[in-house]
């Protein structure tokens, strides 16, 4: 009973992690930019959703995605692009921006935690014998799986995906073959930010939205990406599930060590396989 419920919770949490980390991983893989605004986008998505919830849950999630995509595009265009090739400047720039976004959220939505209501038909729990599984979490797992499949299809089966993969593998060569790499960067940055926003919105019924959510989630995204391998969707998926399981069971079984346990696999992976479980050797 304990193990099954724990596993279920791990998967639900992994779903949130995947939505967060997939975008981060895509952006990092393609552009070599560690976008530290990503956690702030996640929180912003949650806040946007709480403001748009009046128009319905789906509209709220969509609003979060679109809002973050637009903002992501702006950030890429106005900040990240101008700092191309200067990694430290990009890290500091996006980190500074995340503080600004976070404090703007505080200004607009105040510091009170804001819950988001799940759609009526997803409230309550599904009962299976002695087990109780909250419906919304089941839904979250399904949605994350669907998004993972769609992303995989886009990356593996479309021309856009082929271009992205080409640019991830060898940016210069891709550019030389006529792939508009700069525009691709903007598209991927928007897509990644949208995923973060949608993730924040979908997580809000469980986590609610509050100041500090950004800085709680960002390290987890980093962990997932480092563990799974940079730029790899499958890596982000596996990383999310692993971190989800370690996080949930670590907290229950060894609450004193939950953080250590979280970072331990990262240390091992970095020592044995620095490119991550499914990452490719840097070109």
């Amino acid at each position: 009973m304990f193990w099954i419920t724990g596993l279920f919770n791990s998967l639900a949490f992994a779903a949130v992690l995947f939505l967060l980390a997939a975008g981060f991983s895509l952006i990092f893989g393609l552009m070599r930019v560690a976008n530290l605004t990503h956690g702030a986008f996640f929180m912003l998505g949650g806040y946007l959703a709480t403001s748009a919830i009046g128009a319905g849950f789906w509209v709220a999630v969509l609003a979060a995605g679109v809002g973050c995509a637009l903002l992501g595009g702006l950030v890429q265009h106005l900040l990240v692009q101008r700092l191309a090739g200067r990694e430290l400047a990009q890290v500091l720039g996006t980190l500074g921006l995340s503080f600004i976004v976070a404090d703007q959220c505080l200004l607009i939505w105040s510091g009170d935690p804001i819950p988001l209501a799940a759609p009526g038909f997803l409230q309550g729990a599904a009962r299976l014998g002695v087990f109780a599984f909250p419906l919304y979490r089941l839904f979250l797992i399904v949605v994350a799986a669907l998004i993972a499949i769609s992303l995989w299809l886009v990356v593996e089966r479309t021309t856009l995906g082929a271009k992205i993969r080409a640019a991830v593998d060898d940016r210069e060569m891709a550019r030389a073959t006529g792939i508009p790499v700069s525009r691709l960067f903007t598209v991927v940055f928007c897509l990644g930010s949208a995923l973060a926003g949608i993730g924040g919105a979908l997580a809000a019924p469980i986590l609610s939205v509050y100041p500090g959510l950004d800085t709680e989630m960002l390290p987890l995204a980093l962990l997932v990406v480092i563990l799974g391998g940079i730029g790899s969707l499958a890596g982000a998926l596996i990383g999310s599930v692993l971190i989800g399981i370690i996080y949930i069971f670590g907290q229950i079984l060894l609450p004193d060590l939950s953080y250590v346990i979280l970072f331990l696999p990262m240390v091992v992976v970095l020592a044995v396989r620095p490119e991550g479980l499914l990452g490719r050797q840097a070109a």
Partner: protein
Amino acid sequence: MLNRRQVLAGAAALAGTQFAMPAFAQNAPIRIGMLSVKSGALATGGRQMEDGFQLFLKERGNTIAGRPVEFIVADTGGQPALAKTRAQELVQRSNVHMIVGPVAAFEALAINDYLAEAQVPFICSSAAAEDLTQRKLNPWFVRTSSTSAQPCHPLGEYAAKELGYKKVITIADDFAFGQEQTAGFQRVFEANGGSIANKLWAPLNAADYGSYISQISGVDAVFAAFSGANGLRFLRQYNEYGLKGQIPVISAMTTVDEGVLHTMGDEALGIISAGWYSAGLDTPHNNSFVEQLRKVTGVDPGFYSVGAYSAGLALEAALKTVGGKAEDKQGLITALKKAEVVNDPRGPWKFDRYGNPVENIYIRKVERKGDRLVNTVIKTYDQVSQFWTYPPERFLAEPVYSRSNPTKI
């Protein structure tokens, strides 16, 4: 570089101001420094604290004991190191006569030694760390909230005697505040024949309580001690797992504090908690306080606002005693410790000899009144001390409350 002549001139000038002080002291402002938090996760508490104190000042036309007040707010960002820097700035640069605040216990602990050394009256309006008024006394320190466990002691008795609970699981934020609240509840609950089946600790930044909730079964009730957004999240998830209505939740003050209660929904209904305040108290002082603050914030005031407002009331009583002479720090702190506050929204209270309030503790139940949730008072424990019914010496001889079991007295 300064030469000797300049130093002498400076010293003379300083001496001059010293002599001049008494002459215009009556008109010079009383400078009150507040350590607040304006950004980050603790900013809500900071804002509520400022709201409470600003209301106090506004009601008095910014004048205490015949002297105007200069109110200086410093932002600690919720970081202990910065809290210390800001405290030093307030004392050394702004020359404040006393410090009110801060939001978090770890901030209070970070500045306590400095303020003791600098001999600045420290009116702590929220931080509840037990030892600040127990085993690590600073003679310049008084507190206007309570210790962590002060409201949880009566709750332990109430749960065992009146609710008839025999077996309880506790769940709390895994940091000093949650640990002390839980241990206080446990000591008194067990002393009244109850038993604790299990104690669950969730990291302060736990995203998900599902796995803790799935460990809850076979008990009469759950005791929950959370702060900030965590209470909201826990209760929502508790409801999600279908446990609400099966196993009742009883809680520490902050889990369903008015500061966060207005963001909650039906998941909070029926929760019984213990605290030193409720916005639902029907007294003239409280009705006017709630009405005034609702005009500013739109929601019911809670823990932080009342704590800061009370700090103002205690300060006012003390300043009146010393004739407004805020410069007389020794006189002021002595008068503060003797202050008896009768016009407080929470009801009357006074300091014990350790600088902590002896005050009413209310057993409250979350109910829906009109469009909002309120903590309706269902029982009052009159004038409860931080030591509950134990003799202070016996209480203090035991180690401070912690994560591990409280000792039996």
